[in-house]
């Protein structure tokens, strides 16, 4: 029971920190509330799809911004717009906020600004991915130890 309690404590702390530090907002909590016994891996599956989306879109932006013969800012903007939509839908608020700034640089056709945003969005996505994977690992450990996942508030 001690092990379970410790793991549950860690889960609660990690979860609280993700919200407190602005990585996730209430939208993520809504997703957790949707998960049930019929779809026990719903949140992990949505997060995996989000990670795939991010990687594909970040690659698209990177390729578009590297074009020596002239950057197609509309193409970059289209990818940023998609990433903004995905990040809003999972509650990844820091990623979403960078996308907002990123779109302004696309509109201004400011390549340097876009490159800075690309760096920031890549960094924030990596941070979020690591933290979520830690959270999901804790969930698995709690369940494997016979405990239950602390309730979503």
């Amino acid at each position: 029971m001690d092990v379970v309690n410790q793991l549950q404590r860690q889960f609660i702390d990690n979860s609280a920190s993700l919200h407190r530090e602005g990585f996730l907002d209430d939208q993520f909590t809504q997703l957790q509330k949707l998960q049930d016994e019929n779809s026990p891996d719903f949140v992990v599956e949505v997060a995996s799809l989000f990670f795939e989306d991010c990687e594909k879109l970040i690659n698209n932006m990177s390729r578009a911004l590297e074009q020596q013969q002239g950057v197609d800012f509309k193409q970059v903007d289209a990818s940023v717009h998609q990433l903004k939509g995905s990040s809003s839908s999972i509650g990844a608020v820091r990623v979403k906020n960078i996308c907002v700034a990123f779109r302004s640089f696309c509109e201004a056709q400011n390549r340097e600004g876009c490159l800075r945003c690309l760096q920031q969005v890549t960094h924030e996505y990596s941070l979020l991915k690591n933290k979520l994977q830690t959270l999901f690992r804790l969930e698995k450990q709690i369940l494997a130890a016979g405990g239950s996942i602390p309730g979503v508030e």
Partner: protein
Amino acid sequence: MVSGNSASSSSLSMKSDEDIVNNNNNLRVLVVDDSPMIRKLHDMYLKKFGLKVQVAENGKQAVDLFHFGASFDLILMDKEMPIMDGEEATKELRTMGVTSMIVGVTSLDSPNEKQAFMEAGLDYFFTKPLTTDNISFILQELNKKNNKN
């Protein structure tokens, strides 16, 4: 036109969950979005309300479904999609005489773009992400519409 939303927690009691699911058992919904993540999310939201959900990856797939005789009570239509976007698909469906409720769901920023999307033939428009409150509202309006017909 209803637009704009914020994520809000709306929990349903056990008893009302069952009532809501039973009331919505016959309603068919088409989710049109090129993002697998959004399709999965909306599918889950809608199933919680007892709805039968089908998905399409772009506007052309949605239009083709209707061409081949499918019908839906409700269409959730994204705007930015490859091959045929949501605005074009909405216009096409209305031209075909489709009277299903069509709700635009997108992360568009520009009021002009939102206006153009609405004018294509939407009944309502919501900013991503959809919330359970949005869906409750949509279903309320859909039930009112079905009761009138």
